[in-house]
Each structure stands twice: as structure tokens, then as C-alpha cells.
């Protein structure tokens, strides 16, 4: 199980318009004591960054109305948010290339396994702890 020796929770932004998927992933993130914000579209996610909100990780679905995940990832990176870890998610198993081209750090097919999420969160925690040293 991922743990944070320094104590501050990982701030996660979950971007998904499918309510079931958002509920399941939020619950999984809670298992790792993440502080999770949910956005239903790429635009909502982008607005949060424009408001000055900071996140350690963004978990972003691909297909959403108004603004899809790929466009949101591109625009988040274009804002200068280069440190936040961005993980693309999709039920399309072959979305790796499009997400990586958009600027994501990784792609995980849905549904995301708990052990995969654990490893990703632990990576984020390690990076946070190294930054604080």
C-alpha cells in the first residue's frame, strides 16, 4: 500500500464524465488517502488550473463532452504545468500514443487495477518527498 512518510496527502484531480468510473476511482484513491477533486469535462479541469488550484496528479479520461481529455492535457501542459503527473485513462486499450503525444506521462486502460494505482501514487509520493528534501 502506498504511504507518504512526510504526511501531506497527494492531491489528485480526476477528470471523467462517467459517474460510475469517477465513483470507483475516487474510492480507490481514498484507499491511498488522496485528496481528490472530480471534474466532469476537460474544460472543468482546465478551469481549476486557471483558478490557481494545484495538483500532484491528474487522472484524465479521453472521451468527454465539451473538451476531451487529449485537448485538456495539451492545454494543462501549455499553461506551464510541467511538474504535475498526468495519467491518461480510457476503455480504448490503444490510446497510449495519443495521450503521450498530448503530454501525458503515462496511459492506463480502464478499469485501472488497484496495484497499478498504488504504484503510480507511490511514485508521486516519492517525488513529493524528494522535492521537499
Amino acid at each position, binding site marked *: 500500500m502506498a504511504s507518504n512518510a512526510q504526511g501531506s496527502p497527494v492531491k489528485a484531480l480526476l477528470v471523467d464524465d*462517467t459517474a*460510475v468510473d469517477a465513483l470507483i476511482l475516487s474510492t480507490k484513491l481514498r484507499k491511498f488517502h488522496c485528496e481528490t477533486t472530480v471534474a466532469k469535462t476537460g474544460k472543468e479541469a482546465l478551469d481549476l488550473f486557471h483558478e490557481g488550484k494545484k495538483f500532484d496528479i491528474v487522472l484524465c479520461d479521453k*472521451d468527454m463532452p465539451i473538451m476531451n481529455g487529449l485537448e485538456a492535457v495539451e492545454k494543462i501542459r501549455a499553461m506551464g504545468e510541467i511538474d504535475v503527473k498526468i495519467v491518461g485513462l480510457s476503455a480504448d486499450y490503444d490510446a497510449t500514443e495519443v495521450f503521450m503525444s498530448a503530454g501525458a506521462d503515462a496511459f492506463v486502460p*480502464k*478499469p485501472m487495477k488497484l496495484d497499478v494505482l498504488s504504484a503510480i501514487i507511490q511514485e508521486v509520493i516519492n517525488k513529493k518527498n524528494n522535492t521537499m528534501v
Partner: protein
Amino acid sequence: MAATMKLSTLGYAASMLSTGLLDEQFQKLLLLQNKSDPNFVAETITLFCEDGEHTIGELTKRLDKQCVNFDEVAAFVHKLEGGSASVGAKRVKNTCIQFLEFCKEKSRDGCLKTLDTLRVVFYEVSGKFKDMLQLEQQQAEATK
């Protein structure tokens, strides 16, 4: 298995697994339920049933037109595919995969036939989910 779910409910879920209505993804969902998230399974499957009904309604409307926007239809099917994969509703997911093929081929007839199948498999699983939740509630009330 989830400590907070009644054994009879787990038995009901097991029968849905053994008949191929659900797959191992549903078992993983059961494991997420605990004292911190005591209503997780009920909330998840309720959302799935509500979203699924809404999606089937939207698909019916869109395929009722002579001039079908297959991209819009595919978007709805893809969403249901994702949701059904997440809860382990195997037959719904597989039907959505077939549906997406007909969307790619822009075949209205193929889409209409698959929508009929989707209705059958979706209402089969959502009906059983609702029975399962009712059983859980009855058991909870009986032990108060």
C-alpha cells in the same frame, strides 16, 4: 470478500458470476467496500443502472432518425462500454463492443439490432442488481 455485505447477497452475486452475467471485475468492486465506504457497492451499481437507462434512451432517440449521427451514437455506446467494464457487467460490455463495430460501419440496421440485444442484456443485469440490493436491504432490516 467484503465484510460488510451479507452472505446471502454475496451468494446472489456469486450466481451472477457463475452464469457469466458478471466477471471478476465485480469481485474487485466488492473488495473495495469496507467500514469507510459501507455503501460503495450499492452506490456504484445504482449509478450504473441509472446511467445505463439514460444511455439506452439516448441511443433509441438517435437511431430513430433516418439520418443517424454515428459519432454521437458511438460516444454514448463507448460510455456504457466503459461503465459496464468498470462494474464487471460482461455481457453488456461485449454487446457494446459489437455495437461500436456497427457504428464504425455506419450501419443503422446493425445498430438497431444490437440496441435490441443491448436492452435485453442491460435489463437482465440491472434487474438482478436491483434484486441484490433489495435482498441486502431486507437482510439489514431483519438484523436491526
